[in-house]
């Protein structure tokens, strides 16, 4: 029953890790775009937009991603909407990522000093112009470290897509363990691969943060 060599294990896990990477990239880019859209609704002047986004964020940050994936795939299926697994996974991960990124970015925008808004309005700029030329360029800069830091959560979050049939890194680990009954080898390799994917992200987020702090101190 067990004809897996170490190399078979590593090879299969690495192959599965491609899904982890692909899903991460899709959710991150998609989540970023959706999150940016939500951000505008959240900090904009429209009251309805604000409430809507707040509810959205509460919903997606308040329930387990696992359940979100389940309901996106099977829940929609129940209503006769046959979404393919990749679409459901992409959709749920994107919406989940967007909820977190919106909040992170809102914090960054709100951390821009009130004086920047006032100075730019006293120069005659409109809301969009202020955003475009004054607020966002500054917010973007301070948003980079926490955003990169959050990408680590996205990478780990993709593991839950196994509930709707994705054989990504974690699931592959489970399957291989169930074929080999060598949990320590297999999960050790899985942990190592995750570490190799995540650590550069965390590290660069820390380095960026340090750079920014240094830059800030000059003010």
């Amino acid at each position, binding site marked *: *029953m*067990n*004809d*897996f*060599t170490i190399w*078979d294990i590593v090879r*299969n896990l690495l*192959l*599965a890790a491609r899904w982890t990477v692909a899903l991460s990239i899709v959710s991150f880019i998609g989540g970023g775009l959706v999150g940016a859209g939500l951000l505008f609704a959240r900090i904009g002047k429209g009251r309805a937009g604000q409430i809507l986004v707040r509810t959205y964020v509460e919903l997606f940050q308040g329930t387990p991603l696992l359940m979100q994936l*389940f309901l996106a795939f*099977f829940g929609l*299926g*129940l209503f006769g909407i*046959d979404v393919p697994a990749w679409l459901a996974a992409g959709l749920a991960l994107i919406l989940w990522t967007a909820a977190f990124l919106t909040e992170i970015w809102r914090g960054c925008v709100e951390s821009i000093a009130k004086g920047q808004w006032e100075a730019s309005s006293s120069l005659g700029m409109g809301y969009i112009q202020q955003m475009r030329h004054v607020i966002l360029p500054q917010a973007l800069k301070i948003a980079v470290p926490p955003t990169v830091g959050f990408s680590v959560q996205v990478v780990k979050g993709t593991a839950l897509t*196994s*509930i*709707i*049939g994705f*054989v990504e890194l974690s699931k*592959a680990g*489970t*399957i*291989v*363990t*169930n*074929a080999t*009954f060598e*949990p320590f080898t297999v999960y050790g390799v899985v942990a190592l691969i995750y570490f190799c994917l995540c650590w550069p992200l965390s590290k660069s987020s820390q380095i960026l943060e340090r750079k920014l702090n240094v830059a800030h101190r000059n003010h």
Partner: protein
Amino acid sequence: RADALATIEANKVIRIAVPQDFPPFGTVGTDMQPKGYDVDMAKLIADKLGVKLELVPVTSANRIPYLQTNKVDLVISSLGKNPDREKVIDFTMAYAPFFNGVFGPADVMVKDAKGLSGKTIGVTRGAIEDLELTKIAPADVTIKRYEDNNGTISAFLSGQVDLVATGNVVAAAIIERNPPKKPEIKFLIKNSPCYIGLNKDEPALLAKVNEIITAAKKDGALDAISEKWLGAKLPAEL
């Protein structure tokens, strides 16, 4: 709504859910392709229907939703029957035996279900042995239900549970690996068979699958599968 069998025949493809984490019924080879008793059973059915087979790997958590949302036509995942389950889906006739036993290290003395009293026993959640053990175990048994076989086995090997309930073949595979703690058979749980699951109100498909199973029992095809994966012929009463 279109009749499932008609759809299968029209599309020339049948989608069957099989496990990937439940050896020997479903596991993977070194190429990560599914294999096992359930997989061979699926192949057999597709073969007899003369349609292409699309295997959909599932877990115990999502196998029924796959069926209910029509993402698969059949679930061959060593399903056990109970009245609650029968309210939700239909079952075919039995297609596989399940040699369930309670296993434990040599120094734990247990001969029957009563002897489990006060012990901690590990089992895979939702599997047949879980259903059966829950029925027969005395009240003071602690049953720990793990996500999959690996969890159950790991719990046993690391000493988190005194005993495990699992299939013979699984236990044999463990012994083969020569662990410090060898699982010896303590007693057999009622030999409860496995059924194929399908959606309700599909009489045509149900009849067709039952027909295929009956034929396979007669012509020895099932015996061969059983011999290959469980190391024994089908028991007579199945």
